[in-house]
């Protein structure tokens, strides 16, 4: 059987969903990040000087972009799939001959699309504040795509396991935001005292942000190949886990 039509239907529905509510999905990140750039970059950054030879403004731009990609890829999938489950219209997919990998692929693609679109919006806004010559666009785009995939998958798992609306905001608030901030968006890990440097290296987001920053301005705290390896590893693990819980029908079937 040909599943491309089912896949396309899910993806189109997902994209249409967040475009339709763009004042809630695309506008807020534009405003928030403009404020980041203004306050941290322009006002405070001017007094900080340079990190690894880059102005503070240029240094934070990639991190802020990727942080937006992460949170929007995640929240798109978690809220969309949870409400699909909550309103029970997941049953429309379960009765139809749509294999689990197509369902997963469809929702994750929606998350990737939203994440990258928000990333693009933020990148365009950054042009108002910074004047960046991109170092390696292929690396930047590849790591942004893979990062969006990781967090779309994570959002999917969160949605499947969530039993209430509260459960879909726990991970973003208590895990994602702290890990993003501690992942070196606003500083280089070399600026931390010794033990904190080691602890920071256990944070996967640190690798993604640094690889992305390398793609932008050619500056990184970590090895780029290793960053790709970690990100790819996460994708494999999370995709496997997602398919497993879908197969078991956890939270979806009785």
């Amino acid at each position, binding site marked *: 059987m040909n599943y491309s039509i089912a896949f396309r239907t899910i993806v189109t529905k997902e994209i249409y969903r967040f475009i339709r509510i763009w004042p809630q999905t695309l506008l807020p990140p534009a405003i928030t990040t403009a404020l980041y750039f203004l306050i941290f970059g322009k006002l405070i950054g001017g007094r900080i000087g340079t990190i690894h030879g880059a102005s503070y403004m240029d240094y934070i731009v990639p991190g802020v972009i990727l942080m937006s990609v992460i949170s929007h890829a995640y929240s798109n999938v978690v809220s969309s799939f949870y409400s*699909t489950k909550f*309103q029970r*219209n997941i049953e429309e997919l*379960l*009765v139809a*001959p749509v294999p689990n990998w197509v369902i997963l692929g469809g929702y994750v693609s929606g998350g990737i699309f939203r994440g990258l679109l928000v990333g693009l919006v933020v990148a365009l806004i950054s042009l108002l504040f910074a004047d960046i010559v991109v170092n390696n666009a292929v690396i930047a785009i590849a790591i942004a795509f893979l990062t969006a995939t990781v967090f779309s998958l994570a959002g999917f798992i969160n949605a499947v396991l969530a039993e209430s609306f509260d459960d879909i905001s726990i991970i973003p608030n208590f895990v994602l935001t702290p890990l993003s901030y501690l992942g070196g968006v606003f500083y280089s890990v070399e600026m931390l005292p010794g033990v904190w440097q080691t602890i920071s290296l256990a944070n996967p987001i640190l690798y993604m942000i640094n690889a992305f920053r390398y793609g932008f301005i050619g500056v990184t705290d970590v090895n780029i190949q290793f960053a790709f390896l970690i990100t790819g590893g996460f994708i494999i693990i999370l995709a496997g886990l997602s398919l497993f819980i879908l197969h078991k029908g956890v939270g979806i079937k*009785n």
Partner: protein
Amino acid sequence: MNALSLRNLRKTYNNGFEALKGIDLEVEAGDFFALLGPNGAGKSTAIGIICSLVNATGGSVSIFGHDLKTDRAKAKSCIGLVPQEVNFNQFETVKNIVLNQAGYYGTPTKLARQRTELCLKQMDLWDKRDMVSRRLSGGMKRRVMIARALVHAPKLLILDEPTAGVDIEIRRSMWKMMREINRQGTTIILTTHYLEEAESLCRNIAIINHGLIVENTDMASLLSRLNIDHFILYLAQPVAVMPRIEGYQIERVDDKILNVSVPKETGLNNLFSQLTAHNIKVLSLKNRSNRLEQLFMDLIESKPAGDKQ
């Protein structure tokens, strides 16, 4: 060819409740089949398993010869489901709900649009196609679910209480529509609590109670088993004492109303001539209860839980 066959289907929910205790059922292709039973009997559970919404604990399901476990995609493609409760996205438009469902079944875009238009027109919803579904009335929401179930032209249509809470006019038009769909060759399985609905629409019937099939037969032979009809007679003048009439059991409800039990083979002629002889004028009469309802109650009461037929 069987449209559906269930073998020893079992379901125990996570809380330990045994909703289906091993049911076997065959529905022939082209049939209009009633699946009846009281609240909590296990009808929706069985339908849920057939439609891949509930994981079975044991047993097998085969749809038009395709086993649901080994030949999943083909089996699923044959079924259209109208669930008991509204389960579409309330923020989506009517048209998109139906169109997306066609997409999930792999219908190419152009054909999907044509089928969507056809099904929405058939359900009298084409005018509402751009309305957000949350704004529809209850009856319209049911019809959206029927249109959605029909969009991929399934060979087997399963309707779980489609006429619950629907007004009489719409119910009649749904009956007409279901008959028409069945006439065109689609097998229909219908659950309902309106027994007159099952009686007038369905050719074969299964009654399920406490997770077991307690009756599975054709409608005609089920009804023929009822050998006593019950009537209510409305009289023109009050009668103080009711005369005895041989062959009929008559009970005075009040001055002008009588309950009469009539054995099938006896008929009504003799009753009326006797009443006329006693100078009792009958203004009108009606059936006391739906005949099927009577049988249904008998079947359910005579076969308690765990008593496998």
